[in-house]
């Protein structure tokens, strides 16, 4: 996947010898891409291939190397019982898997939606000139800076119904009439997880959007001021289109992350059916249960889901792959 993709520059007509400038650039491009490709091939290629391979075997962690190829059995298996009844087995026939899929998608959608909105607001605020901006910028990153394993536990502490400060605060402020066991009740578990995730990752969004905002040339805002464009309109017609590339990348990485959400839920509500996501489920099979192959199959399905999503996103979102090149 490395060298043969770096073919001739497309713009040059056949008859023309490739220009030295172009050659030099393509050569440089190849040189620049190679280390990255090698690094990724080793660090990701082999493990990915292994995982996908295991998903087609009957591997267990007790017997990893004696695994035998069983084809699609882990995904879907149709068995006809002696009684003549047909039963379906495998991940795809497992309702709890579909529940996890639904949880994951639901979680990813809401968390990324809110992170985007809040991240944008925060970024706009940070983009404004005011005293103490540097400190606010640092403060804003704190949620992202606290290790997840710590912040998740911290929140589970704060969300506790007995000695959790949030229930106390809510009741003091009159927002709650009684303490709520946020992570325990199925109805609120997802909400709690969402709140924590949004709290934690909004800074990521905000910072990336902020960087995008900073790269927008200032003079076109002057033109817009002169054109009498209301700030709100300026936001939608100028800022948004121009940060769009940065925003799209931020969103895509957040969605990828959200679809793979693991540690937060693992700590906060590890076994609640209301929040169990694909990653949590697959981790369970891989390392806790004796179903390494099935876990691999689930990981592979998650990979496929993400890939489909990404392709759709790039296609529908018209993410532009070329631009400033020459």
């Amino acid at each position, binding site marked *: 996947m490395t060298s043969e993709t770096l073919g001739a520059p497309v713009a040059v007509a056949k008859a023309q010898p490739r220009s030295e400038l172009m050659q030099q*650039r393509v050569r440089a491009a190849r040189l620049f*891409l190679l280390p990255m490709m090698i690094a990724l091939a080793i660090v990701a290629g082999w*493990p990915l291939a292994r995982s996908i391979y295991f998903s087609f075997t009957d591997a267990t962690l007790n017997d990893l190397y004696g695994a035998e190829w069983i084809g699609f059995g882990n995904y879907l298996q149709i068995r006809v019982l002696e009684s003549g009844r047909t039963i379906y087995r495998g991940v795809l026939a497992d309702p709890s898997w579909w529940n996890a899929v639904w949880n994951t998608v639901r979680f990813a959608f809401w968390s990324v939606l809110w992170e985007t909105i809040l991240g944008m607001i925060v970024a706009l605020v940070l983009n404004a000139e005011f005293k103490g901006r540097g400190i*606010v910028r640092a403060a804003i990153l*704190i949620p992202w800076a606290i290790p997840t394993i710590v912040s998740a536990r911290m929140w589970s502490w704060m969300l506790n119904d007995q000695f959790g400060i949030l229930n106390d605060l809510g009741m003091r402020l009159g927002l709650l009439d009684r303490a709520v066991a946020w992570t325990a009740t199925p109805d609120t578990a997802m909400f709690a997880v969402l709140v924590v995730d949004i709290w934690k990752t909004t800074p990521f969004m905000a910072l990336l959007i*902020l*960087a995008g905002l900073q*790269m927008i040339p200032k003079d076109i805002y002057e033109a817009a001021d002169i054109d009498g464009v209301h700030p709100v309109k300026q936001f939608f017609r100028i800022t948004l289109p121009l940060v769009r590339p940065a925003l799209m990348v931020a969103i895509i990485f957040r969605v990828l992350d959200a679809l793979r959400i693991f540690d937060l839920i693992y700590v906060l509500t590890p076994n609640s059916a209301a929040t169990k996501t694909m990653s949590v489920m697959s981790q369970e099979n891989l390392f806790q249960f004796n179903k390494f192959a099935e876990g691999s199959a689930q990981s592979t399905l998650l990979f496929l889901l993400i890939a489909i999503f*990404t392709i759709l996103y790039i296609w529908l979102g018209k993410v532009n792959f070329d631009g400033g090149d020459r």
Partner: protein
Amino acid sequence: MTASFDLWKLTKRVLFYALVVVIVVVSVFPFYYAILTSFKAGTDLFRINYWPTSFSLANYQSVFSQGAFPRNLLNSVFVATVTVLLALFLAVTASFALSRVRFRGRSLLLMTILAVSMFPQIAVLAGLFEVIRFLGIYNTPWALIFSYTIFTLPFTVWVLTTFMRDLPVEIEEAAIVDGASPWVIITRVFMPLMWPALVTTGLLAFISAWNEFLFALTFTVSNQTRTVPVAIALLSGGSQYEIPWGIIMAASVIVTVPLVALVLIFQRKIVSGLTAGGVKG
């Protein structure tokens, strides 16, 4: 007319600062709570306080007396720094190729890079473990630096590619005419113009590497090579089920402070208008 105008302006300012305060409070409150907790001990931990009631540095002392926390801090600094420098180096060069040189299969390549980020971390754990043992870097900081590229590299490459695409072509052309090689263009012309993007991706990647837990736990086995998040998970109370809450909070405060300082130092580079004045159009 001027009076009402000023009033409106004043309201706007007040609202703006109110928003700033809300944002800061929401972001910082849990951390503040962590600091409060880090000064508590025993049953106090289970009591709700909004203001400091007791002030004891015992938790901080235990952080440094248990295990090899200072050593773990150093490990984290080393691992995260090298990871970020390496990722930025690879990503800056790669993103130049991806954003500025037209070649066949470019979008496919970008997608491939992204695909690396599509696999759940836990799923690559077993395979990565094999690779790391094969390379003979198991239980060294290099195992972490190496494995962290799996999440830092796609991210930095994509973000920097996006940002580099937006830099004016004319400036690059001027450099070409001035006789600059691609390497010089990247280092002397583009990088200074991309400070916001570089600092942002660098910080975000640094923090991810700093906070990574699963790989760090799996690929290192001794206190001398482990990083801070694992060290925090290793902090323990007197007995099996007891979570040493105060100590964990103290440790979290200790590891978060350098990050805050880092942000404070580097956020100055997130300034706008870096490309202003370069070209007309």
